[in-house]
């Protein structure tokens, strides 16, 4: 399987049927690959998925692994000596941190995949880049968080990096003015986490008069904090367009467990899979793929993970996929909307969650 074929072409273009065939072949290969190389994955399939894998006939038959497993177990398909990066993410599920073992090959695939996606969105040129963050998050590798890793990963696609925040998280209006003075007349790239972009970049542009109409914003990280202040994707887009002319805005969805494999906003404010990835919405009552337009749990599939069995993951996010017809090519394409995290249920029982209760009641 030569995955490089996927990155040679602009992303989000492969016709649906052809894509499904490529993907199926690649995912089946990966299931076998991890089954043979990861003892833990083999054990899971043998004991908890009914035995050795047979080639899936459709993508939805590819066995999936709950993403939270990476928080409690080291799942890897290469010897320890081959691991180049141990990616970590602070989970919001309260179960700790995901640890993802990445070897040189997978790291290379991740880089090339992300480059192919960003080039499709931004173009081939490395543009001047504005970051809605502080450079403190990338300076100390020991403090490297998912946020820092994301920033470092994206910085490669730009030049003349300007962080608009100070180390003490103060937005520096002067830096923005200076950046725009030098680069604002031609296309430039903006990157940041959704909440940071809103909290810091929007707060600055809202108060002054800035022209960001040449900007291309890529942002990610979820809407939970913004929903609490009633800002959804449409509002977000509208406000930026109205205050500073920023219209080329691309929200994207991805996770450290499938780094490089991101779903990028396109037509209809929906997110679209690159050609080497796919999304399936599962009905949590039956675990069958949900009908088009029905709410369910997001499963993500990607051809990138080689050094760990993460090619098919059940997330803890809710989403809807709607099949739309591409306005240019008139082929069908599947657009994802992410509707936040699955709400957690506390099972009742005889034991009080006492420590938590004391803390919250004392607060």
């Amino acid at each position, binding site marked *: 399987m030569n995955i490089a074929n996927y990155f040679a072409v602009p992303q989000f273009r492969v016709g649906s049927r052809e894509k499904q065939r490529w993907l199926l072949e690649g995912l089946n290969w990966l299931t076998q690959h991890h089954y043979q190389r990861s003892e*833990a994955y083999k*054990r*899971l399939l043998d*004991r*908890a998925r009914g035995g050795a894998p047979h080639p899936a006939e459709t993508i939805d038959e590819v066995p999936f*692994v*709950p993403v*939270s*497993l990476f928080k*409690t*177990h080291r799942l890897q398909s290469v010897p320890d000596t081959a691991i180049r990066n141990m990616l970590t993410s602070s989970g919001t599920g309260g179960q700790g941190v995901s640890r993802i073992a990445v070897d040189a090959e997978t790291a290379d695939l991740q880089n090339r995949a992300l480059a192919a996606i960003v080039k499709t969105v931004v173009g081939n040129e490395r543009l001047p880049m504005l970051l809605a963050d502080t450079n403190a998050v990338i300076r100390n590798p020991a403090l490297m968080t998912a946020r820092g890793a994301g920033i470092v990963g994206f910085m490669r696609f730009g030049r003349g990096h300007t962080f608009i925040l100070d180390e003490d998280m103060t937005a520096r209006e002067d830096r923005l003015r200076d950046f725009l003075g030098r680069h604002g007349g031609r296309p430039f790239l903006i990157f940041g986490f959704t909440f940071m972009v809103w909290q810091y970049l929007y707060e600055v542009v809202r108060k002054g008069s800035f022209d960001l109409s040449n900007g291309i914003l890529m942002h990610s990280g979820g809407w939970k904090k913004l929903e609490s202040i009633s800002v959804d994707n449409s509002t977000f887009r509208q406000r930026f367009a109205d205050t500073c002319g920023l219209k080329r805005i691309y929200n994207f969805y991805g996770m450290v467990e499938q780094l490089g494999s991101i779903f990028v906003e396109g037509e209809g404010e929906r997110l679209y899979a690159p050609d080497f990835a796919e999304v399936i919405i599962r009905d*949590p*009552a039956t675990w069958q793929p949900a009908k088009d337009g029905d709410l369910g*749990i997001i499963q993500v599939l990607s051809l990138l993970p080689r050094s760990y069995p993460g090619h098919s993951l*059940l997330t*803890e996010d*809710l989403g809807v996929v709607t099949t739309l017809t591409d306005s240019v090519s008139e082929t069908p394409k599947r657009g994802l909307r992410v509707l936040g995290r*699955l*709400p*957690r*249920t506390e*099972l*009742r*029982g*005889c*034991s*009080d*969650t*006492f*420590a938590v*209760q*004391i803390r919250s*009641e*004392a607060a």
Partner: protein
Amino acid sequence: MTSTATEFFPNHGTIELDAIAKRAASMRRAAPGRPFGEDALAFLGSVSGRLLAEEVRTKHPQLAALGFWIRRPMLAQLAKRYQSRAAEDSAMLVARGLVFHLPPANVDIMFAYSWLLSLLAGNANLVRLPGSLNPAARLLLDVVAQEAVDFRAIRDSSLLLHYAHSATANRAMSEQCDARAIWGGDAKVLDLRTVPLPPRAIQIEFTDRFSYAAFNVHAYVAASESDRSALASRFFNDVFWFDQMGCASPRMVFWVGDEEEAKTAAKDLWSRLGVVISSRGYSVDASTAVAKLAYADRFTLDWPVEAVHRLSNELTVISLAEPVDFRGHVMGAGMMMECHIGSLCDIAPFVAPKDQTLVQFGFQRDEIEDLLTKSRGRGLDRVVPIGRALDFHHLWDGYDLIATLCRVVHVV
């Protein structure tokens, strides 16, 4: 820190924590002082009558269970038994004085069992209710308030209130009591142990527990179709009430006897249980379903699992090669381990202090006693037939609650 508490019974209103000492003194004076007083029996009898009424029974079966448990004839029998036992020892039972109850926050009407038992024992009672009360608990409080109108001593010797947990508030309450009953698990018990009690006061503690079931596979296979269906129906109650999160909810099944019969029995019971789950309309939400998937996977990686059977979102059965100590890592909501063993006493090496209830089917009393002997006192406080795991009893968690909430005075 708030310095007030909300009073729910006998009055509605606010009570200053500074006033607790004075109130406690008057409650003590009003209490009957000895167990099974006529007032207590009559009051509990009339509450029982109300809880057994048709409309309560259909809406709140847990209240009907409580009502059944405090029926007057049943209490009269208990009275006779305790009194004759004391008489044989040339002793007299008296109340402890004032009992401070800290019922669990999330088992809706547990406070009533703790309180009413202690009332039966003749004590004054201070009960800290949970912050939020569900409809069953609110109805119960209404019934109690209405029935207590005629029982001045009950009203004057009881105080049901809610306050935010704080060391100061818990200390203010604890200073007044002769016995403290703490329900709600290890963390709560350990935390409250740091709040001192008066020198002579005792404490009864309800910590986190673990329970399991054992089936005699030969007896199971020999049972008729309808008996097996009835058994599955009763086992459903054991497992799924309280989402399998009760102290007494079984979390593992031991299939005891011949291996082939064990396989037949397991297959049969799980499929019948599946039918009961659907017919009773038990279902888990998406978050729990995902949590169960992940739990079963983690369990598979961590323990000697032979196979995971996901029969539905509601019921996952994990077959183990041997019993494993997963007491600190339980799931609930229909997550069942199973394991085959040759005879009941093979459970003995597995028994641990945390173990509370063994729900059993098809064993003789001598087999059970053999198991309990071989367990060397390490665990197991209850052995009950299938379907009765969650039946409350005054013998609970290794305590005789009535005897414990009384004092034995030797009168020679």
